[in-house]
């Protein structure tokens, strides 16, 4: 079924509530105040899915959490390398390897970002369960450091079955010290969309 305006509004609402929860959770984790911008949501055509990055092969950090239960699919977060390292510094107090060209060292150093993925997913899932009675189980989060277009293949493939664009959410987290923009893809499988709409009485 096509992603219509009503579904987009639902996902935006989940995004809003989820981001609010996430800010609280992150503030607790970092023991610091975290402000959060409202998520910008829009359907982005595949041809533009890496806009905002310098090129489709720009290196990024992606964290994926799979969902199962009443809703299947996944949530994927994508950060630029600068944002990922800023986040790492915020979480651990360390700034990562001095040589950012050392791919293996970078992958190892950024592992703590997976924990942020966990928190964000937890935040979105509690937003969903506050709006429905759906039981959704998240997987362990997984980090990938690779080209942004390759990462974007993941949500594109799900949306590709029904159209030419993907629902894209972008949020800015900031505190006094830094500002981090993260992009999120909340990607239920197509039949999960139907279940979600039904659970919301729509």
């Amino acid at each position: 079924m096509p992603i219509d305006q009503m579904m987009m509004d639902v996902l935006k609402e989940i995004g809003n509530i989820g981001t609010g929860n996430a800010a609280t959770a992150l503030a607790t984790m970092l023991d610091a105040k975290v402000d959060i911008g409202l998520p910008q949501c829009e359907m982005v055509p595949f041809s533009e899915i890496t806009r905002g990055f310098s090129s489709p092969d720009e290196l990024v950090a992606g964290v994926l959490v799979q969902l199962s239960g009443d809703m299947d699919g996944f949530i994927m977060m994508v950060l630029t390398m600068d944002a990922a390292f800023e986040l790492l510094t915020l979480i651990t107090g360390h700034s990562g390897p001095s040589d950012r060209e050392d791919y293996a060292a970078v992958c190892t150093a950024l592992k703590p970002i997976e924990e942020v993925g966990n928190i964000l997913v937890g935040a979105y899932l509690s937003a969903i369960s506050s709006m429905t009675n759906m039981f959704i189980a998240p997987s362990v989060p997984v980090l990938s450091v690779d080209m942004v277009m390759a990462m974007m293949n993941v949500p594109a493939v799900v949306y590709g079955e029904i159209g030419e664009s993907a629902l894209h959410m972008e949020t800015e987290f900031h505190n006094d010290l830094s500002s981090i923009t993260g992009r999120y893809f909340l990607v239920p499988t197509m039949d999960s969309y139907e279940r979600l709409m039904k659970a919301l009485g729509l």
Partner: protein
Amino acid sequence: MNTVLIGIAELNVVKAPDKISTLGLGSCCGVTLYDKTTKICGMVHVMLPSATAVSDSSNKAKFADSGILLLLDRVQRAGAARPGITAKMAGGANMFASTTMQNNLLRVGERNVQACREMLAKLRIPLLAEDVLGTYGRSITFDPATGMLNIKTVGMGEKSI
């Protein structure tokens, strides 16, 4: 000499000395069809295995089956001779392979590779070389002057096949 860039679910055809390229193949597959006599090469960046399995198949370049078929038509129209056409391909990775739960969505890379191989076999186009699967992204460039497919990765080096 230009390098023509194609994006996801797109295709194009070039002739030597131009080259053709696509960046950031994850689970997607990049397939090239090449005629070394005329030095014509087409490339398609496919996302999904089959146009028949989905509700919206209007963009033929999106799918392995319809995309390769469309590409074959395009390279022939550009002057490539059917009997001399050969193929190479790259991509079909699983970008988040170490998850504890694996499902059909994340296995789409393998299914794309399978679908491409099947369509090429069906069309009796020899698949001369491939660099597929794995857990990493690839950027590829085909040079019709040499017939070589160059593949760049972030952490696994660079090679030509």
